[in-house]
């Protein structure tokens, strides 16, 4: 283990623990893997795959929401009172 670490740290200057740490942090964010009970046995490639899927899902949600928002905004006729109300609400 130590020999592997020293070899890699010579080439890439990245520690394995750092990568493990990042992967575990990423794992905590994913709802798919958070709900599973065997949190120790999730392989890293699975984490990566779930991350890609999750980001794609979030992108799709943002797209849907933005098209819905644009529809809503275009149907509001007087933009002065409603927009002012919304701006002050938020």
């Amino acid at each position, binding site marked *: 283990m130590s020999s592997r670490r020293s070899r890699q740290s010579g080439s890439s200057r990245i520690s394995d623990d750092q*990568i493990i740490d990042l992967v575990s942090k990423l794992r905590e964010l994913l709802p798919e893997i958070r709900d599973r009970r065997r949190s120790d046995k999730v392989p*890293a490639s699975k984490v990566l795959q779930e991350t890609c899927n*999750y980001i794609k899902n979030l992108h799709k949600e943002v797209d849907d929401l933005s098209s819905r928002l644009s529809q*809503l905004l275009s149907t509001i006729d007087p933009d002065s*009172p409603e927009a002012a109300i919304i701006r002050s609400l*938020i």
Partner: protein
Amino acid sequence: MSSSLISPNPIPTSSPATAGGGDRSREAKTRRRKKKAQAQAQAQSKGRSQSSKWKSHAQQQIFSSSLLQALAQSRRGAGGGGGGGGGGGGGGRAVREAADRALAASAKGRSRWSRAILAGRIRISKFRKRKRPAAAVAAAAAGRSRKPRVSVSRLRGKGMPAVQRKVRVLGRLVPGCRKEPLPVILEEATDYIEALEMQVRAMSELARLLSGVASTGAGTSSDSPAAPPPSQ
């Protein structure tokens, strides 16, 4: 006139929609500056106490207010030309880009993806539309059919082609991380996922508010006139 805006009063009656376009934009600018300053002060006090800055409510407020201003600006610019016909697909893309820019601005430039978004939004989107569907479908199909059983040690070795491919796909999904090494991509992905979740939350709340306003505004439009009166 503008001092009442900072207090949490929901409905300012007299101040915002006065006069013509020039006065309104100036007032909007001063209002925006004051609101942003106050929101930032709030965010600083709340953000430091919480561990991740994207989950704080103040951050969401900053994002929503900047998004609203961007939307209002774009609407004022393109309202005369394509008002009714721009909804749905075409208008959605503009909203999405405004939302992404607002999200990147809320990141305050501390992450690579936010800088990449702010730097070259037009360029990236043009490339994305062509490359992303084909590459994503291929990568997803390959990943599902193979099912490799690797652990973190393989990830450390960075030798497995399947893992490499997934890392490349991930790097392409997160803006600005196409050529970065693995830990950078992981870190950026962590931040980006939190930011995207915040964006989804804020936009869904905005949509909920707007749909509520739209449904009630259609019925009670007699209170406020459509055209802003010059003297109020």
